[in-house]
């Protein structure tokens, strides 16, 4: 029920504490954090060192799509609370990119809704990654078929 798109980092513990504050009907909190890896998977099966990445997004449409995905999760599962935070801008290896969290009385709804949100976000939220490698070149990360397939399984 909360969506944030921001350049700043987030504090996982503080965000989760705020999400469940005062609600003792929450028995389960599932969360997912995506991080910048220092290795990128290249299309040819090789790996390239990544020193940083820049996340570009479509201001306005991003918030709209995240809110819609969040509403879809609320409609499908009995959630007491949910939260999506997605960062944009330049991020170093090891930094947090995205947080998805769902709270419900029991674990299945929280776990499934969390998985749904991150799968759906990967193909519906307008973000694009530019990876920087040590040779100075940046390259735009290509979408993966596996992400589309992951989203399709929820349709």
């Amino acid at each position, binding site marked *: 029920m909360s969506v944030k798109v921001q350049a700043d980092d987030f504090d996982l513990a503080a965000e989760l504490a705020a999400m469940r504050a005062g609600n003792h009907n929450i028995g389960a909190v599932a969360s*997912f954090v*995506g*991080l910048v890896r220092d290795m990128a998977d290249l299309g040819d099966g090789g790996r390239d060192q990544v020193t940083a990445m820049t*996340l*570009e*997004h*479509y201001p*306005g*449409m991003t918030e*709209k799509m995240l809110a819609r995905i969040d509403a879809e999760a609320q409609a499908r599962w009995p959630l007491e609370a949910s939260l999506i935070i*997605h960062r944009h801008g330049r991020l170093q290896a090891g930094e947090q*990119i*995205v947080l998805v969290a769902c709270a419900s009385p029991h674990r299945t709804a929280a776990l499934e809704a969390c998985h749904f949100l*991150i799968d759906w*976000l*990967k*193909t*519906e*939220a*307008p*973000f*694009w*990654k*530019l990876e920087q490698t040590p040779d100075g070149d940046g390259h*735009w*990360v*290509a*979408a993966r078929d596996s*992400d*589309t397939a992951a989203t399709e399984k929820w349709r």
Partner: protein
Amino acid sequence: MKILYFAWLRNKVGCAEEELTPPADVATVADLVAWLATQSSGHADALADMQVVRCAVDQEYVGLEHVIGAAREVAFFPPVTGGD
């Protein structure tokens, strides 16, 4: 009409945003793409393969057959790659 380009489409076109008035016979997204491709070699290059380009009209995903109508904002970008 405001036209937006993101990620490598922006690099190829050479700008992030432009205000254009397409001719009256531009009805669909496909028509708009064909017309934009005549604007510069950068535009033509960016929009050469619409298999790898997605379009949003007024911030809603649409297909090439979508009728633009009175849209205020049309965006072109690659398939998205957010998340982890």
